[in-house]
């Protein structure tokens, strides 16, 4: 009997800690995964994650300032981050999310850009950030790995 009570208590406790971990402002579909994948693991071998559904977490370090259609999450490795993209209007991330911890579930996708597309992409992002764009930073075609978000929880 004691074992059953202990097992039940453990189950309730583990469920409650999982729920607690995802408390905050909710966006899009509810999160279904409970084990976060390290952003550094995706950045280390992105091809092995392309097309797979993952849950990632980190500090929100940038948010699209016009449409709230993307955000950048800080990686667990220094000086690295990953972009999280949503379909315009389906999920809108608020600017106030910057500096808060987010849990995002989605599909890892590969974005192959020609040099012209990379230049357009750079210009677009610079305009959204309100900064000037240096075209010499784009030296050729680019491949970007990002997360196509399905749902997110941003801690308050």
């Amino acid at each position, binding site marked *: 009997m004691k074992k059953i009570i202990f097992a039940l208590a453990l189950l309730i406790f583990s469920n409650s800690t999982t729920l607690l971990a995802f408390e905050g402002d909710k966006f899009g579909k509810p999160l279904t995964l409970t084990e976060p994948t390290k952003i550094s693991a995706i950045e280390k071998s992105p091809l092995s994650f392309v097309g797979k559904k993952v849950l990632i977490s980190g*500090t929100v*370090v940038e948010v699209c*300032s*016009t*449409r709230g259609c993307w955000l950048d999450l*800080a990686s667990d490795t*220094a*000086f690295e*981050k990953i972009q999280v993209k949503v379909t315009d*209007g389906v999920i*809108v991330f608020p*600017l*106030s999310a*910057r*500096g*808060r*911890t987010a849990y995002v579930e989605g599909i890892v996708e590969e974005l192959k850009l020609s040099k012209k597309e990379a230049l357009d992409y750079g210009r677009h992002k610079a*305009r959204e950030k*309100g900064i000037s764009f240096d075209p010499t930073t784009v030296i050729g075609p680019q491949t970007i790995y990002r997360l196509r978000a399905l749902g997110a929880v941003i801690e308050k």
Partner: protein
Amino acid sequence: MKWRKWNNIIHRDLGYLCFGLTIIYAISGVAVNHIDIWNPSYSIERIQSQLAKPVATEQLGRDTIFEILAELDETGLYKNSFRPDPQTLQIFVEGNTLTVNLTTGNVLQEKVTSRPVLHQMNFLHLNHPKKLWSWFADLYALFLGALAVTGLFVLRGKKGITGRGAWLTTTGILLPLLFLWLYF
């Protein structure tokens, strides 16, 4: 004719009912139409500041961050920090993001404030609440359709749908078609 009387009653009362939401959608519609050149929900103020001296990267801890904030008279609630590259430190406080160039001591502050009224209007217009609001907005769209149809039959005669109304209604249908022909 009895049906016209009911048509006009429905048109009048739907007009009253839809007034509030139509004004919200009209104002927010103009605001979000120009989303490429401004943020319709938030006001973003960018300020360049300069620290008295560069920041030594090996000393970077919470104490240093709070010293930077104090030097810039930033009293907002500290949330977090991030190093996008070895020369840069981002500090997140409530309503402000500070990007510090550690080598030069140059700081870019981005102060974000919600646009009163407009933010709430956009919130509804862009259906951010989802849930029950989606159904309410669908109902409003139905009402707008009914308002348009009943509007055609409010007047009889030369100023009605068989006279001037026909020309104006045809123009109203042709204009979007013209833009489709031009841009689609």
